[in-house]
Protein backbone atom coordinates (compact mmCIF):
# COMPACT_ATOMS: atom_id res chain seq x y z
CA UNK A 1 0.00 0.00 0.00
CA UNK A 2 1.38 3.39 -0.94
CA UNK A 3 2.01 5.91 1.79
CA UNK A 4 0.06 9.17 1.45
CA UNK A 5 1.90 12.03 -0.27
CA UNK A 6 3.87 14.33 2.00
CA UNK A 7 1.76 17.31 3.02
CA UNK A 8 3.95 20.09 4.50
CA UNK A 9 0.90 21.97 5.87
CA UNK A 10 -0.26 18.94 7.77
CA UNK A 11 3.23 18.07 8.94
CA UNK A 12 3.89 21.60 10.19
CA UNK A 13 0.53 21.83 11.93
CA UNK A 14 1.07 18.57 13.79
CA UNK A 15 4.52 19.63 14.94
CA UNK A 16 3.47 23.14 15.88
CA UNK A 17 0.40 22.09 17.83
CA UNK A 18 2.50 19.65 19.85
CA UNK A 19 5.22 22.24 20.49
CA UNK A 20 2.84 25.14 21.11
CA UNK A 21 2.57 24.85 24.94
CA UNK A 22 6.36 24.78 25.35
CA UNK A 23 6.84 27.70 22.94
CA UNK A 24 4.12 29.68 24.68
CA UNK A 25 5.80 28.98 28.04
CA UNK A 26 9.09 30.20 26.64
CA UNK A 27 7.51 33.40 25.36
CA UNK A 28 5.66 34.10 28.62
CA UNK A 29 8.95 33.72 30.47
CA UNK A 30 10.48 36.47 28.38
CA UNK A 31 7.59 38.91 27.89
CA UNK A 32 5.88 38.25 31.25
CA UNK A 33 2.36 38.67 29.88
CA UNK A 34 0.44 35.75 28.46
CA UNK A 35 -1.66 37.97 26.17
CA UNK A 36 1.49 39.37 24.60
CA UNK A 37 2.79 35.79 24.35
CA UNK A 38 -0.43 34.77 22.56
CA UNK A 39 0.13 37.47 19.95
CA UNK A 40 3.77 36.56 19.53
CA UNK A 41 2.84 32.90 19.16
CA UNK A 42 0.83 33.79 16.07
CA UNK A 43 3.79 35.66 14.60
CA UNK A 44 6.01 32.74 15.55
CA UNK A 45 3.83 30.25 13.67
CA UNK A 46 4.01 32.49 10.61
CA UNK A 47 7.81 32.79 10.72
CA UNK A 48 8.37 29.10 11.34
CA UNK A 49 6.04 28.14 8.51
CA UNK A 50 7.93 30.43 6.11
CA UNK A 51 11.18 28.70 7.05
CA UNK A 52 9.75 25.21 7.34
CA UNK A 53 11.63 24.06 4.24
CA UNK A 54 14.85 24.61 6.18
CA UNK A 55 13.76 22.55 9.18
CA UNK A 56 15.93 19.50 9.79
CA UNK A 57 13.56 16.91 11.19
CA UNK A 58 16.38 15.19 13.09
CA UNK A 59 16.40 18.24 15.35
CA UNK A 60 13.71 18.66 18.05
CA UNK A 61 11.00 20.96 16.71
CA UNK A 62 10.72 22.83 20.03
CA UNK A 63 14.43 23.63 20.02
CA UNK A 64 14.15 24.87 16.42
CA UNK A 65 11.16 27.04 17.33
CA UNK A 66 12.86 28.51 20.37
CA UNK A 67 15.46 30.13 18.11
CA UNK A 68 12.68 32.06 16.36
CA UNK A 69 10.82 32.74 19.59
CA UNK A 70 13.91 34.18 21.21
CA UNK A 71 14.34 36.63 18.36
CA UNK A 72 10.67 37.63 18.47
CA UNK A 73 10.84 38.24 22.22
CA UNK A 74 13.94 40.37 21.80
CA UNK A 75 12.23 42.43 19.06
CA UNK A 76 9.18 42.79 21.30
CA UNK A 77 11.34 44.14 24.13
CA UNK A 78 12.91 46.70 21.83
CA UNK A 79 9.50 47.94 20.69
CA UNK A 80 8.13 48.52 24.19
CA UNK A 81 8.08 52.03 25.62
CA UNK A 82 7.56 50.67 29.10
CA UNK A 83 8.57 47.13 29.98
CA UNK A 84 6.91 45.06 32.71
CA UNK A 85 10.45 44.41 33.98
CA UNK A 86 13.18 46.81 32.80
CA UNK A 87 15.70 44.13 31.90
CA UNK A 88 19.05 44.90 30.32
CA UNK A 89 19.58 43.04 27.03
CA UNK A 90 22.31 40.88 28.51
CA UNK A 91 20.00 39.84 31.36
CA UNK A 92 17.29 39.06 28.85
CA UNK A 93 19.74 36.89 26.92
CA UNK A 94 20.66 35.01 30.11
CA UNK A 95 16.99 34.57 30.94
CA UNK A 96 16.35 33.28 27.41
CA UNK A 97 19.17 30.70 27.76
CA UNK A 98 17.67 29.40 30.98
CA UNK A 99 14.11 29.47 29.62
CA UNK A 100 15.24 27.49 26.56
CA UNK A 101 16.76 24.83 28.83
CA UNK A 102 13.51 24.66 30.84
CA UNK A 103 11.28 24.53 27.76
CA UNK A 104 12.60 21.04 26.95
CA UNK A 105 10.89 19.79 30.13
CA UNK A 106 7.67 21.71 29.55
CA UNK A 107 5.51 18.67 28.80
CA UNK A 108 6.63 16.95 32.00
CA UNK A 109 5.82 20.04 34.00
CA UNK A 110 2.43 20.42 32.40
CA UNK A 111 1.55 16.81 33.19
CA UNK A 112 2.71 17.35 36.78
CA UNK A 113 0.69 20.56 37.05
CA UNK A 114 -2.46 18.77 35.92
CA UNK A 115 -1.94 16.18 38.63
CA UNK A 116 -1.31 18.88 41.22
CA UNK A 117 -4.38 20.92 40.25
CA UNK A 118 -6.57 18.00 41.28
CA UNK A 119 -5.44 18.45 44.87
CA UNK A 120 -6.45 22.09 45.19
CA UNK A 121 -9.22 23.06 47.58
CA UNK A 122 -12.43 24.59 46.23
CA UNK A 123 -11.33 27.97 47.55
CA UNK A 124 -7.98 27.75 45.80
CA UNK A 125 -9.65 26.64 42.59
CA UNK A 126 -12.07 29.57 42.86
CA UNK A 127 -9.32 32.17 43.14
CA UNK A 128 -7.51 30.66 40.14
CA UNK A 129 -10.75 30.65 38.20
CA UNK A 130 -11.29 34.35 38.90
CA UNK A 131 -7.73 35.31 38.09
CA UNK A 132 -6.98 33.12 35.10
CA UNK A 133 -10.27 32.05 33.58
CA UNK A 134 -12.34 35.18 34.12
CA UNK A 135 -9.11 37.21 33.83
CA UNK A 136 -10.09 39.46 36.72
CA UNK A 137 -7.47 41.69 38.25
CA UNK A 138 -6.46 41.12 41.86
CA UNK A 139 -8.32 44.35 42.67
CA UNK A 140 -11.50 43.16 40.99
CA UNK A 141 -11.41 39.81 42.80
CA UNK A 142 -10.91 41.65 46.08
CA UNK A 143 -13.90 43.92 45.44
CA UNK A 144 -16.12 41.06 44.37
CA UNK A 145 -15.26 38.94 47.38
CA UNK A 146 -15.20 41.80 49.91
CA UNK A 147 -11.59 41.15 50.79
CA UNK A 148 -8.49 43.28 50.62
CA UNK A 149 -6.14 43.25 47.67
CA UNK A 150 -3.44 41.92 49.99
CA UNK A 151 -5.63 39.01 51.12
CA UNK A 152 -6.25 37.95 47.50
CA UNK A 153 -2.59 38.38 46.61
CA UNK A 154 -1.61 36.19 49.56
CA UNK A 155 -4.05 33.51 48.46
CA UNK A 156 -2.61 33.54 44.95
CA UNK A 157 0.90 33.45 46.32
CA UNK A 158 0.04 30.50 48.51
CA UNK A 159 -1.49 28.62 45.57
CA UNK A 160 1.55 29.36 43.41
CA UNK A 161 3.93 28.10 46.06
CA UNK A 162 1.80 25.04 46.73
CA UNK A 163 1.72 24.18 43.05
CA UNK A 164 5.45 24.78 42.56
CA UNK A 165 6.22 22.53 45.51
CA UNK A 166 3.86 19.85 44.23
CA UNK A 167 5.28 20.01 40.70
CA UNK A 168 8.82 19.83 42.02
CA UNK A 169 7.93 16.84 44.17
CA UNK A 170 6.11 15.11 41.32
CA UNK A 171 9.02 15.56 38.92
CA UNK A 172 11.65 14.41 41.36
CA UNK A 173 9.68 11.45 42.68
CA UNK A 174 11.35 8.16 41.65
CA UNK A 175 9.49 6.26 38.98
CA UNK A 176 7.55 3.29 40.44
Amino acid at each position, binding site marked *: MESPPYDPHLSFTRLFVTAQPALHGFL*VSLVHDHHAADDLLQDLAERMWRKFDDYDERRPFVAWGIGFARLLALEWHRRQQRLPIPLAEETLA*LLADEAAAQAIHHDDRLAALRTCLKHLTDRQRAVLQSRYQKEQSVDAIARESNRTQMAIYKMLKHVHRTLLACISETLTRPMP
Partner: protein
Amino acid sequence: MHFGNLDPAHAMSDSNSPSLDNLALRTLHGLADEGERVELARLLGSSPESRRRFLDHAMLHGMLAREAGAGAFAADAPAFFRDIEHPPARKERHLLGFWLPAAAAGIAACVVAFSLLPTRASAALERVIQTLNESHDRTYRIEVIEPADEEMPPRADRGRFPPANFLDGARLWLRGPGEFVLSQSLPNGQSRVIGSDGGESWSLRGGEAVRVSPDPERFGRAIFARSSDLAFLDLRTQIDDLKPLYQIEWLDHSSRETWKLIASRRSADHGGPREVELWFHPETGLLERMILRHLPRGNGGPRSIAVILESTAPLPADFFSHGHYHEPGRTILTEP
Protein backbone atom coordinates in the same frame (compact mmCIF):
# COMPACT_ATOMS: atom_id res chain seq x y z
CA MET B 1 11.86 24.95 44.02
CA HIS B 2 13.22 25.13 40.52
CA PHE B 3 11.11 22.47 38.87
CA GLY B 4 12.93 22.60 35.58
CA ASN B 5 15.83 20.83 37.17
CA LEU B 6 14.84 17.23 37.67
CA ASP B 7 17.67 16.53 40.07
CA PRO B 8 16.26 16.66 43.62
CA ALA B 9 19.62 17.85 44.85
CA HIS B 10 18.98 21.12 43.06
CA ALA B 11 15.53 21.70 44.50
CA MET B 12 15.39 24.78 46.70
CA SER B 13 13.22 25.92 49.50
CA ASP B 14 10.91 28.87 48.92
CA SER B 15 12.03 30.45 52.11
CA ASN B 16 15.48 31.06 50.63
CA SER B 17 14.29 34.01 48.61
CA PRO B 18 10.90 35.27 49.72
CA SER B 19 11.78 38.68 48.37
CA LEU B 20 12.26 37.38 44.85
CA ASP B 21 9.06 35.33 45.08
CA ASN B 22 7.14 38.43 46.08
CA LEU B 23 8.66 40.62 43.41
CA ALA B 24 8.06 38.01 40.71
CA LEU B 25 4.47 37.34 41.72
CA ARG B 26 3.58 40.98 42.28
CA THR B 27 4.95 41.76 38.81
CA LEU B 28 3.14 38.86 37.13
CA HIS B 29 -0.13 39.85 38.81
CA GLY B 30 0.23 43.51 37.83
CA LEU B 31 0.72 44.78 41.38
CA ALA B 32 4.39 45.79 41.38
CA ASP B 33 5.33 49.45 41.42
CA GLU B 34 8.22 50.96 39.49
CA GLY B 35 10.70 50.44 42.35
CA GLU B 36 9.76 46.77 42.68
CA ARG B 37 10.15 46.16 38.94
CA VAL B 38 13.59 47.79 38.94
CA GLU B 39 14.60 45.70 41.95
CA LEU B 40 13.39 42.53 40.22
CA ALA B 41 15.42 43.42 37.12
CA ARG B 42 18.48 43.90 39.32
CA LEU B 43 18.00 40.52 41.01
CA LEU B 44 17.50 38.75 37.68
CA GLY B 45 20.77 40.19 36.44
CA SER B 46 22.59 39.15 39.57
CA SER B 47 22.32 35.37 39.82
CA PRO B 48 21.33 32.29 37.83
CA GLU B 49 19.31 31.04 40.79
CA SER B 50 17.16 34.19 40.75
CA ARG B 51 16.53 33.71 37.04
CA ARG B 52 15.57 30.06 37.49
CA ARG B 53 13.21 30.87 40.34
CA PHE B 54 11.62 33.70 38.38
CA LEU B 55 11.16 31.40 35.38
CA ASP B 56 9.43 28.83 37.59
CA HIS B 57 6.86 31.47 38.52
CA ALA B 58 6.55 32.87 34.99
CA MET B 59 6.10 29.45 33.39
CA LEU B 60 3.55 28.42 36.01
CA HIS B 61 1.70 31.70 35.39
CA GLY B 62 1.61 30.96 31.65
CA MET B 63 0.55 27.34 32.15
CA LEU B 64 -2.26 28.36 34.51
CA ALA B 65 -3.52 30.87 31.96
CA ARG B 66 -3.58 28.23 29.24
CA GLU B 67 -5.12 25.57 31.45
CA ALA B 68 -7.79 28.05 32.55
CA GLY B 69 -8.58 28.77 28.92
CA ALA B 70 -9.04 25.05 28.36
CA GLY B 71 -11.44 24.68 31.31
CA ALA B 72 -9.26 23.33 34.11
CA PHE B 73 -10.94 25.55 36.72
CA ALA B 74 -14.46 25.33 35.38
CA ALA B 75 -17.34 24.07 37.47
CA ASP B 76 -16.89 20.63 35.98
CA ALA B 77 -13.13 20.48 36.38
CA PRO B 78 -13.14 16.75 37.22
CA ALA B 79 -14.61 16.12 33.76
CA PHE B 80 -11.84 18.24 32.26
CA PHE B 81 -9.18 16.07 33.85
CA ARG B 82 -11.04 12.86 32.99
CA ASP B 83 -11.11 13.97 29.36
CA ILE B 84 -7.38 14.61 29.38
CA GLU B 85 -6.63 11.23 30.86
CA HIS B 86 -9.26 9.34 28.86
CA PRO B 87 -10.04 11.47 25.81
CA PRO B 88 -13.55 10.97 24.45
CA ALA B 89 -13.77 9.90 20.84
CA ARG B 90 -15.32 13.24 19.98
CA LYS B 91 -15.32 16.34 22.15
CA GLU B 92 -18.77 17.09 23.48
CA ARG B 93 -19.65 20.64 22.68
CA HIS B 94 -22.08 20.96 25.54
CA LEU B 95 -19.27 20.77 28.10
CA LEU B 96 -18.32 24.27 27.13
CA GLY B 97 -21.72 25.38 26.06
CA PHE B 98 -22.31 27.62 29.05
CA TRP B 99 -19.68 30.09 27.88
CA LEU B 100 -20.97 32.72 25.56
CA PRO B 101 -18.76 34.91 23.40
CA ALA B 102 -17.14 38.01 24.71
CA ALA B 103 -17.63 39.65 21.34
CA ALA B 104 -21.31 40.03 22.04
CA ALA B 105 -20.16 42.18 24.90
CA GLY B 106 -22.30 45.20 24.59
CA ILE B 107 -25.42 43.14 24.37
CA ALA B 108 -24.80 42.09 27.97
CA ALA B 109 -25.43 45.65 29.00
CA CYS B 110 -28.94 45.30 27.66
CA VAL B 111 -29.53 42.53 30.11
CA VAL B 112 -28.41 44.79 32.91
CA ALA B 113 -30.92 47.32 31.80
CA PHE B 114 -33.76 44.92 31.38
CA SER B 115 -33.51 43.48 34.81
CA LEU B 116 -33.68 46.82 36.60
CA LEU B 117 -36.58 48.56 34.97
CA PRO B 118 -39.95 49.28 36.56
CA THR B 119 -42.56 46.63 35.87
CA ARG B 120 -44.12 48.07 32.73
CA ALA B 121 -40.83 48.83 31.08
CA SER B 122 -39.26 45.63 32.22
CA ALA B 123 -42.02 43.73 30.47
CA ALA B 124 -41.04 45.46 27.22
CA LEU B 125 -37.44 44.74 27.88
CA GLU B 126 -38.10 41.11 28.60
CA ARG B 127 -39.31 41.03 25.04
CA VAL B 128 -35.95 42.42 23.93
CA ILE B 129 -34.09 39.79 25.92
CA GLN B 130 -36.24 37.15 24.38
CA THR B 131 -35.41 38.53 20.93
CA LEU B 132 -31.72 38.53 21.74
CA ASN B 133 -31.88 34.91 22.76
CA GLU B 134 -33.73 33.86 19.64
CA SER B 135 -31.68 32.47 16.83
CA HIS B 136 -32.08 35.26 14.27
CA ASP B 137 -29.36 36.71 12.07
CA ARG B 138 -28.44 40.31 12.75
CA THR B 139 -25.76 42.49 11.19
CA TYR B 140 -24.39 45.42 13.20
CA ARG B 141 -21.88 48.12 12.25
CA ILE B 142 -19.55 49.51 14.89
CA GLU B 143 -18.69 53.20 14.91
CA VAL B 144 -16.20 54.84 17.20
CA ILE B 145 -17.81 57.94 18.67
CA GLU B 146 -14.91 58.96 20.85
CA PRO B 147 -11.44 57.52 20.18
CA ALA B 148 -8.92 56.44 22.78
CA ASP B 149 -7.39 59.24 24.82
CA GLU B 150 -4.37 60.70 23.06
CA GLU B 151 -2.32 60.47 26.22
CA MET B 152 -3.09 56.76 26.40
CA PRO B 153 -0.92 55.12 23.71
CA PRO B 154 -2.17 51.79 22.35
CA ARG B 155 -1.04 48.95 24.58
CA ALA B 156 2.09 47.57 22.99
CA ASP B 157 1.66 44.23 24.72
CA ARG B 158 -1.45 43.50 22.66
CA GLY B 159 0.52 42.90 19.48
CA ARG B 160 0.81 44.96 16.36
CA PHE B 161 -2.91 45.32 15.82
CA PRO B 162 -4.73 45.10 19.15
CA PRO B 163 -8.34 44.11 18.35
CA ALA B 164 -9.78 46.83 20.59
CA ASN B 165 -7.99 49.53 18.59
CA PHE B 166 -9.59 48.77 15.23
CA LEU B 167 -13.28 48.79 15.96
CA ASP B 168 -14.27 51.78 13.82
CA GLY B 169 -16.14 50.45 10.79
CA ALA B 170 -15.96 46.87 12.04
CA ARG B 171 -18.98 44.63 11.49
CA LEU B 172 -20.52 42.32 14.03
CA TRP B 173 -22.83 39.49 13.06
CA LEU B 174 -24.91 37.63 15.64
CA ARG B 175 -27.16 34.59 15.47
CA GLY B 176 -28.05 32.53 18.53
CA PRO B 177 -26.35 32.50 21.92
CA GLY B 178 -22.62 32.07 21.53
CA GLU B 179 -22.57 32.67 17.78
CA PHE B 180 -20.78 35.77 16.55
CA VAL B 181 -18.43 37.02 13.85
CA LEU B 182 -16.47 40.28 14.06
CA SER B 183 -14.66 41.57 10.99
CA GLN B 184 -12.07 44.35 11.19
CA SER B 185 -9.96 46.16 8.61
CA LEU B 186 -6.34 46.60 9.67
CA PRO B 187 -3.99 49.43 8.64
CA ASN B 188 -1.78 47.07 6.64
CA GLY B 189 -4.67 46.35 4.29
CA GLN B 190 -5.44 42.94 5.77
CA SER B 191 -8.71 42.03 7.39
CA ARG B 192 -9.05 40.12 10.62
CA VAL B 193 -12.07 37.97 11.34
CA ILE B 194 -12.79 36.67 14.82
CA GLY B 195 -15.74 34.42 15.50
CA SER B 196 -17.37 31.58 17.32
CA ASP B 197 -19.97 29.01 16.38
CA GLY B 198 -20.88 28.66 20.04
CA GLY B 199 -18.69 25.60 20.47
CA GLU B 200 -15.26 26.79 19.43
CA SER B 201 -13.80 30.18 18.61
CA TRP B 202 -11.39 31.08 15.86
CA SER B 203 -9.36 33.92 14.42
CA LEU B 204 -7.77 34.54 11.06
CA ARG B 205 -5.84 37.46 9.66
CA GLY B 206 -5.19 37.93 5.96
CA GLY B 207 -3.81 34.76 4.40
CA GLU B 208 -2.32 33.47 7.65
CA ALA B 209 -3.06 30.22 9.42
CA VAL B 210 -6.43 29.93 11.14
CA ARG B 211 -6.22 29.73 14.92
CA VAL B 212 -8.93 27.68 16.56
CA SER B 213 -9.65 27.27 20.26
CA PRO B 214 -12.07 25.01 22.11
CA ASP B 215 -12.76 28.03 24.34
CA PRO B 216 -15.73 29.81 22.65
CA GLU B 217 -14.70 33.21 24.02
CA ARG B 218 -10.94 32.90 23.58
CA PHE B 219 -10.52 35.34 20.70
CA GLY B 220 -13.35 37.73 21.51
CA ARG B 221 -11.89 38.35 24.94
CA ALA B 222 -9.37 40.82 23.57
CA ILE B 223 -12.08 43.12 22.29
CA PHE B 224 -13.87 44.34 25.31
CA ALA B 225 -12.54 43.48 28.69
CA ARG B 226 -9.39 41.91 29.87
CA SER B 227 -10.46 42.13 33.46
CA SER B 228 -14.12 41.41 33.16
CA ASP B 229 -15.25 43.85 35.81
CA LEU B 230 -18.48 44.06 33.92
CA ALA B 231 -18.71 40.44 32.97
CA PHE B 232 -19.57 40.12 29.31
CA LEU B 233 -19.29 36.40 29.19
CA ASP B 234 -22.63 34.82 29.80
CA LEU B 235 -25.75 36.84 29.27
CA ARG B 236 -28.10 34.41 30.93
CA THR B 237 -26.37 33.32 34.08
CA GLN B 238 -24.58 36.52 35.01
CA ILE B 239 -27.60 38.80 35.13
CA ASP B 240 -27.76 38.66 38.90
CA ASP B 241 -24.12 39.70 39.15
CA LEU B 242 -24.74 42.70 36.91
CA LYS B 243 -28.01 43.95 38.41
CA PRO B 244 -26.57 46.13 41.14
CA LEU B 245 -24.12 47.90 38.84
CA TYR B 246 -26.37 50.14 36.69
CA GLN B 247 -29.15 52.67 37.24
CA ILE B 248 -31.72 52.39 34.44
CA GLU B 249 -33.92 55.23 33.22
CA TRP B 250 -36.10 55.91 30.23
CA LEU B 251 -34.55 58.25 27.72
CA ASP B 252 -37.50 58.21 25.36
CA HIS B 253 -40.53 55.97 25.04
CA SER B 254 -42.92 58.35 23.30
CA SER B 255 -42.09 57.24 19.77
CA ARG B 256 -43.87 54.37 18.06
CA GLU B 257 -40.72 53.53 16.16
CA THR B 258 -37.95 53.39 18.72
CA TRP B 259 -37.71 53.33 22.49
CA LYS B 260 -34.55 54.41 24.26
CA LEU B 261 -33.12 53.58 27.64
CA ILE B 262 -30.06 54.81 29.42
CA ALA B 263 -28.10 52.74 31.92
CA SER B 264 -25.66 54.59 34.16
CA ARG B 265 -23.01 52.81 36.14
CA ARG B 266 -23.80 53.19 39.83
CA SER B 267 -20.24 53.32 41.09
CA ALA B 268 -16.84 54.14 39.66
CA ASP B 269 -15.50 51.25 41.72
CA HIS B 270 -16.87 48.87 39.14
CA GLY B 271 -15.55 48.40 35.64
CA GLY B 272 -17.44 48.49 32.36
CA PRO B 273 -18.74 51.48 30.36
CA ARG B 274 -19.94 54.41 32.44
CA GLU B 275 -23.10 54.75 30.40
CA VAL B 276 -25.00 52.49 28.02
CA GLU B 277 -27.76 53.75 25.74
CA LEU B 278 -30.13 51.24 24.19
CA TRP B 279 -32.47 51.83 21.27
CA PHE B 280 -34.94 49.11 20.41
CA HIS B 281 -38.19 48.51 18.59
CA PRO B 282 -41.08 48.65 21.09
CA GLU B 283 -43.04 45.79 19.57
CA THR B 284 -40.43 43.36 18.35
CA GLY B 285 -37.80 44.14 20.98
CA LEU B 286 -35.16 44.17 18.27
CA LEU B 287 -32.04 46.00 19.44
CA GLU B 288 -31.38 48.73 16.88
CA ARG B 289 -28.59 50.70 18.43
CA MET B 290 -26.42 50.47 21.47
CA ILE B 291 -24.06 53.22 22.57
CA LEU B 292 -21.33 52.41 25.07
CA ARG B 293 -19.83 55.57 26.59
CA HIS B 294 -16.67 55.93 28.65
CA LEU B 295 -15.36 52.44 28.20
CA PRO B 296 -12.53 51.44 30.57
CA ARG B 297 -9.25 53.09 29.60
CA GLY B 298 -7.12 50.13 30.58
CA ASN B 299 -8.27 48.11 27.62
CA GLY B 300 -6.55 50.50 25.21
CA GLY B 301 -9.51 50.85 22.86
CA PRO B 302 -11.88 53.77 22.15
CA ARG B 303 -13.71 55.64 24.91
CA SER B 304 -17.15 55.41 23.28
CA ILE B 305 -18.65 53.31 20.52
CA ALA B 306 -22.01 52.78 18.86
CA VAL B 307 -23.22 49.40 17.64
CA ILE B 308 -25.80 50.04 14.92
CA LEU B 309 -28.19 47.54 13.36
CA GLU B 310 -27.72 47.31 9.60
CA SER B 311 -29.68 44.29 8.57
CA THR B 312 -31.68 41.30 9.71
CA ALA B 313 -31.23 39.44 6.41
CA PRO B 314 -30.53 35.71 6.81
CA LEU B 315 -26.89 34.68 6.58
CA PRO B 316 -25.46 31.48 5.09
CA ALA B 317 -25.76 28.43 7.32
CA ASP B 318 -21.99 28.11 7.83
CA PHE B 319 -21.47 31.84 8.40
CA PHE B 320 -20.28 31.37 12.00
CA SER B 321 -17.74 28.65 11.13
CA HIS B 322 -14.23 29.62 10.10
CA GLY B 323 -14.46 27.47 6.97
CA HIS B 324 -16.71 30.14 5.48
CA TYR B 325 -13.80 32.60 5.42
CA HIS B 326 -10.92 30.71 3.86
CA GLU B 327 -10.00 28.27 1.16
CA PRO B 328 -10.11 24.56 2.05
CA GLY B 329 -6.32 24.07 2.16
CA ARG B 330 -5.58 26.79 4.77
CA THR B 331 -3.39 25.74 7.72
CA ILE B 332 -5.41 25.40 10.91
CA LEU B 333 -3.66 25.66 14.28
CA THR B 334 -5.85 24.17 16.96
CA GLU B 335 -5.05 25.15 20.51
CA PRO B 336 -5.16 22.35 23.02
